[in-house]
């Protein structure tokens, strides 16, 4: 089951070589858990960085993890970093919309930042990019 995991120890100065990366890619892709998040809090924002795949199996867990991340703060300003999400489907998009609505209703806000290319494509073709990305469009 997905859990809140500590930050990965992959500092820029220990960057993997292309070959190591390829080996890691193969190994990680076979075994990496479907979904995990990493939460960072600043004075103004809660950043929830999501890793994995958002589908019908994992989207309930994502909703739970995001709500948990802004538990104490009804007016939380949440940035959902989806650069580490290799896959999202319609159920995942619906989970994002529902979560955004719930947080907005309680006086906070949520927007998606840094969507991966697959996430961005689905946001675009469903027209949900406007709602979920707000002003953050990928360069």
């Amino acid at each position, binding site marked *: 089951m997905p859990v809140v995991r500590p930050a990965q120890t992959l500092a820029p100065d220990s960057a993997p070589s292309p070959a190591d990366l390829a080996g890691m890619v193969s190994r990680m892709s076979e075994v990496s858990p*479907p979904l995990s998040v990493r939460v960072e809090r600043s004075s103004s924002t809660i950043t929830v960085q999501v890793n994995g*795949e958002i*589908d*019908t*199996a994992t989207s309930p867990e994502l909703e739970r993890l995001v709500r948990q991340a802004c538990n104490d703060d009804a007016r939380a300003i949440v940035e959902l970093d989806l650069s580490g999400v290799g*896959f999202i*489907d*319609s*159920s995942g*998009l*619906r989970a994002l919309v529902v979560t955004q609505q719930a947080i907005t209703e309680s006086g906070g806000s949520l927007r998606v930042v840094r969507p991966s*290319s*697959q996430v961005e*494509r*689905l946001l*675009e*073709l*469903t027209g949900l990019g406007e709602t979920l990305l707000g002003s953050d469009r990928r360069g």
Partner: protein
Amino acid sequence: MREPPGTIAESVEISIPSDARYVRLVRLATSAVASIVDADVDTIDDLRVAVDEMCAALIEVARGDKISLRLWLDGDTIGIEGTTVLGDAAALDAERFSLSDQILRVITDDHEFGADGNGSCRFWISRSLAPVQV
């Protein structure tokens, strides 16, 4: 309803438990088939989404405990057919699948989802290997 070709040597068949956790397996298998037939990166992404939407819908309406899929290549078009034993026919309401349907209209060349009259439910998509323009 366009029928998949009757006898295709090069087809892949998969059956999974009617359980959302197994949909990832089907996505991976679909990516593997798509790369074997030299689909480009964007087409592979679209096929992953299409087969995922298919499995999610079938799992939602299934009565049985199994979802069966077949993937085949017909010329330069990939066809994927999924079937399951239909539970509640009322679950087949279009509203509930509208977002999914909206996505499938863009990323597939053709798709169809419904009861087949024999107590089975059938979902079918086809997608040419040339990239679709959004």
